């Protein structure tokens, strides 16, 4: 679909085509709302079901049955009557629910009756020395290459960090015939003790047996080393990975280092739209303040999926359905919708076991609050020491820090440094991330070219001004 084919207004605009967005769009369109779903990627599926309609990985065992569950979701959305627009970048959303979107270099402003933000999560920043070197990638990036392009690590490859995705990816790479020389597990030992209290709940959850099986599968084939220090070393690209546990230090030559330390909500669009956020101390991230229907503090704007707080792909779809039912009830109360109570119960079930995972995978302070010359803001190349020193000089928050150091001012708009900067300021000033707050984010939340912006249709007001 081209920008010029879009209607000027829709009952519901869904932003993001992962499980939450697909489920929301399908339900709303079936109930009769005019619905459009925008996703900036070439296909729908989000990250979890990335390339679900086009993956070259045909052996279903490689990516696993949890991945292929996405086929049904995508098909449902596709058949629902919703307009599904891929390659569509949403760069602005304001409190009056005006949505700025670009498709193939042309921009439009679309009025939404309701909006469901389903922009999901992104990987928690993992600022270690050398993490900007070519050859260092996020594990999620490698998983995308596998799902969408059928590419697997083939050289000297090391994975490092922790969290369910790291182990899942390791298993997928191995099943696909890829190569992993070592997994460096950064999980602090104390986390196991802290997680123990949540064990009974976890054992009863589906995560338990799946997780155990994955761990066994990977550990049988790859050396796993517990580390508490980690560094990527190289000149113009990665040459070796240096790691340490206690006093012992090792160096391992490597072409590829895949980093992962869990995921956090992608708050950029919601924050720029004025949605109130709060600090989640258990998951160490900011998340939107929402009611039980996932409505945000801004009227008519809901946030569903992992963007509403990390809960996983299955929960994301249920959250999307709940937000869509709220949209239908608001705009078309007479329409039939699925039973809300059943969906809420499904969602409740998905929460089981999360507390254990959160406690176990809580990243160590040393990996969240780097020291010295380690780069914090990759775009503007701002180091941990600069941020710490500037905080010591009296800089109280991330927004002042932007003005002093330009951290968060580059094209990624703080996505890869925001949490680190907040935590560093809090640490230096002896206060909490909740107190310090996050960057104030400004649209466009994704950069647009001047030509794209100039391509917005000329309004009546402007036309008259020119004629006069």
């Amino acid at each position: 679909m081209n920008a010029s084919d879009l209607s000027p207004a829709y009952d519901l605009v869904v932003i993001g085509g992962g499980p939450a967005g697909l489920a929301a769009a399908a339900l709303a369109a079936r109930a009769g709302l005019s619905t459009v779903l925008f996703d900036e990627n070439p296909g729908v599926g989000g990250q979890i079901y990335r390339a679900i309609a086009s993956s070259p990985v045909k052996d279903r065992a490689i990516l696993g049955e949890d991945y292929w569950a996405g086929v049904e979701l995508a098909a449902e959305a596709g058949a629902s009557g919703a307009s599904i627009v891929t390659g569509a970048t949403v760069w602005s959303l304001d409190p009056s629910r005006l949505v700025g979107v670009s498709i193939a270099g042309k921009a439009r402003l679309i009025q939404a009756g309701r909006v469901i933000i389903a922009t999901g999560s992104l990987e928690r920043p993992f600022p270690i020395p050398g993490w900007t070197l070519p050859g260092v990638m996020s594990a999620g990036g490698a998983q995308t290459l596998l799902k969408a392009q059928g590419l697997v690590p083939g050289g000297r490859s090391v994975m490092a960090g922790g969290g369910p995705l790291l182990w899942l990816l390791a298993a997928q790479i191995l099943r696909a015939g890829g190569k992993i020389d070592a997994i460096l597990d950064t999980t602090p030992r104390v986390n196991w003790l802290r997680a123990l209290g949540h064990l009974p709940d976890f054992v009863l959850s589906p995560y338990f047996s799946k997780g155990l099986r994955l761990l066994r599968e990977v550990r049988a084939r790859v050396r796993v080393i517990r580390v508490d220090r980690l560094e990527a070393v190289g000149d113009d690209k990665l040459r070796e990975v240096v790691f340490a546990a206690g006093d012992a230090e090792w160096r391992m030559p490597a072409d590829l280092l895949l980093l992962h330390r869990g995921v956090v909500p992608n708050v950029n669009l919601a924050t720029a739209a004025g949605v109130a956020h709060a600090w989640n101390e258990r998951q160490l991230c900011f998340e939107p303040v929402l009611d039980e229907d996932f409505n945000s503090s801004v009227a008519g704007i809901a946030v569903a999926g992992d963007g509403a707080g990390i809960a996983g792909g299955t929960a994301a779809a249920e959250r999307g359905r709940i937000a869509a039912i709220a949209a239908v009830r608001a705009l078309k109360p007479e329409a039939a919708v699925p039973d809300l109570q059943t969906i809420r119960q499904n969602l409740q079930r998905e929460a089981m076991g999360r507390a254990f995972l959160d406690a176990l995978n809580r990243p160590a302070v040393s990996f969240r609050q780097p020291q010295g010359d380690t780069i914090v803001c990759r775009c503007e190349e701002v180091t941990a020491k600069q941020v710490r020193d500037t905080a010591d000089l009296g800089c109280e928050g991330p927004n002042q820090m932007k003005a002093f150091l330009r951290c968060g001012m580059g094209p990624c708009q703080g996505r890869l440094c925001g949490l680190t900067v907040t935590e560093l300021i809090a640490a230096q000033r002896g206060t909490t991330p909740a107190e310090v707050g996050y960057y104030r984010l400004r649209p466009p939340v994704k950069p647009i070219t001047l030509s794209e912006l100039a391509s917005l249709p000329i309004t009546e007001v402007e036309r008259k001004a020119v004629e006069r």
Partner: protein
Amino acid sequence: MRTADVVVIGGGIHGCSTALHLALRGLKPILVEKDYAGRHASGVNAGGVRQLARDLAEIPLSISSMSLWERIEELVGDDCGFVSHGTVLVAENETELASFRARVDDLRLRGFTHEELIDRAELKRLVPAVADHCPGGVVSRRDGAADPFRTTQAFRRRAIEMGAEVLEGVTVTGLARAGANWRVETSAGPIEAPKVVNAAGAWADRIAAMLGEPAPLTVVAPMLMVTSRVAPFIQPVVILRGRKLSFKQLDNGTVVIGGGHLATPDRDRNETVLDWDKLAISARTVWELFPAMRAATIVRAWAGIEAYMPDGIPVVGPSSTSEGVYHQFGFSTHGFQLGPGTGAMMAELVATGSTNTPIDGLEIGRFRDQARRQS
């Protein structure tokens, strides 16, 4: 209870500059700011330091400011990112150029020589990237640009070093006579001082209302946008007259595009909602004027909250109702350059009761007279 010689309300560039200049005169000011210094327009404006194209009533303040800008590091201990590559007002057609010529001639008759008419060749020399259809313009060669947040912070820091007290996150809730003093009620307790300066920007009418003085400001939020870093290609700040545009490249390579299209402000929530239809007008203007910018990437847009007066020029001078209170607000989207000089003038006025810098035409009484005429 806190006491001071002067309470300055508002921590923008004007409040901070006035506090510094009061401290330099040996007085003890307390500055009260509801957020933090430079939080609003003073910290997020386009950073233009411009004498060009100013209202006649502002020119003396602008010229005195310029001489402070040129020794800004000596004044505040920081160069504030100030660079001087001139401001160029580009004429888009011959009619515009003719009106510019009349203005420059008029200024000369009045003794002001900072504006200089330039032809097509000189325009191309100063701004090689400008589109070929532009026949000339006006340049003010000493003009320049600075980093607004850094500048405001530098004034704040030096004011504190010189003995001013700066209270941030503190709101003024009341203002009343207490004998020979003014009693300023704040969220951090009362402060008493014989003199008060109202430099509260978009909130200044609320302070004036505490004195029963009408200050018919409009709360506005001029929008700006900035590109990702591109190689250096333009040095002066460029502005237009017929269409709204200000355009300049920073040392770091980013290009700031502004010009006065307005966002919707909410001064009670410190928020602004951008108007993309109007930003698209800016984009089209740049598209025509600087063809090289067409594929440049916009990475951020924003708007700072400030006050606009009905006649587009600020309120500077003593209160018309309340002795010992002075106003310094309503800079109507062009107050950044005026900050240093207006602060110096205000400190002189507060300390000595008079000033050598002409501020005729900027008094608050003009609105009371207006209100009376209308009723």
